[in-house]
């Protein structure tokens, strides 16, 4: 297939699947909290609807940066789709995507000129505690498989079995990242309701629709990477079931867990990350991991 056609199809699948999964996430949270909740397609409809909504650029923003950062957010997740589902390339590229995503969170808040956005941008620095366990998880995948290439990791698992059974604590570290990035997460300190919508507060109308588009792709890519590097070669049905199950689990956790204060959030993430990190090292050196 033509490479551009492959990329476009994957981007569209990522957007549609990501939007519906985020809609499902919201529905699950509502049902757990005994509310009817919005329809599952609501997130998708919102993303498209905002492109036609009235949009104005507030006086306090840094205009080029304010629009540019939304462009960069979409750009990095297109890179995520290419490095993941399209090219099966290096995990380091995806780690780079998360590093830049942190910068986007930070600069989206600071470019807005809003005190809520700025406070959220400060919290984005604190919440870098999420990316450390992600990096550790990637290192452990490398230590076990001897490669960072997603295609080769899939091949390794087709021979030796899924990595979830070999390094479960590394998978748990990655899963913590998924919980952190899921909507209404207990660790979502950058979007705490006391900050209105955090770093997204001043991005409304078209720009919010563009952000929702990127976030849908981000959710899909994150679940795709987790399923691919820990559950081995999967069929399209396998991915679909896996993504729905993870969305269900995160929806249940987020519906029943209040958002933590920033210091508690960071300490919880670092504590879980440290336990999983040293636990995996112990497993490797005691020979539990082959």
């Amino acid at each position, binding site marked *: 297939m033509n490479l*551009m056609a492959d990329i476009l199809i994957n981007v569209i699948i990522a957007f549609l699947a990501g939007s519906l999964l985020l809609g499902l996430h919201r529905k699950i949270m509502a049902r757990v909290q005994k509310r009817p909740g919005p329809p599952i397609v609501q997130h998708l409809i919102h993303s498209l609807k905002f492109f036609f909504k009235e949009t104005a650029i507030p006086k*306090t923003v840094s205009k080029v940066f304010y629009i540019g950062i939304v462009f960069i957010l979409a750009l990095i997740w297109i890179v995520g789709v290419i490095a993941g589902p399209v090219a099966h390339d290096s995990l380091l590229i995806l780690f780079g995507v998360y590093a830049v995503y942190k910068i986007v969170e930070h600069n989206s808040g600071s470019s807005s000129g*809003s005190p809520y956005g700025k406070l959220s941008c400060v919290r984005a620095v604190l919440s870098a505690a999420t990316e450390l366990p992600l990096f550790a998880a990637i290192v452990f995948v490398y230590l076990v498989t001897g490669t960072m290439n997603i295609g080769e990791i899939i091949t390794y698992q087709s021979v030796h079995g899924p990595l979830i059974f070999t390094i479960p604590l590394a998978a748990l570290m990655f899963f913590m990242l998924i919980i952190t990035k899921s909507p209404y997460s207990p660790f979502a300190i950058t979007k705490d309701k006391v900050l209105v919508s955090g770093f997204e507060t001043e991005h409304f109308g078209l720009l919010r629709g563009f952000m929702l588009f990127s976030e849908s792709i981000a959710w899909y890519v994150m679940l795709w990477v987790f399923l691919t590097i820990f559950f081995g070669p999967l069929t399209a049905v396998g991915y679909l079931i896996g993504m729905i199950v993870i969305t269900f689990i995160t929806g249940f956790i987020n519906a029943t867990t209040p958002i933590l204060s920033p210091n508690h959030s960071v300490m919880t993430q670092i504590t879980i990350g440290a336990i999983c990190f040293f636990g995996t090292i112990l497993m490797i050196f005691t020979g539990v991991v082959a």
Partner: protein
Amino acid sequence: MDSQKGLYIVLLALSTIAILACLVIDFDAWIVYAVAIFGIPLWILSLGLLTMAKPEPGDAEERVKEPFTGY
């Protein structure tokens, strides 16, 4: 037509042509990746800037002060 709208149309046309060219012609992979990474977000952004509703002239001043700046 104001200059901003003209710029958005040019950006939309450029990104559309670049994406279509990659669909029709088999360029090197790095060229296709570059076009996809910059072209797809640019296409969506420029299309959105054209489709978005603008505030009424009388409301424009009020809108840019809205809503959460806190100043």
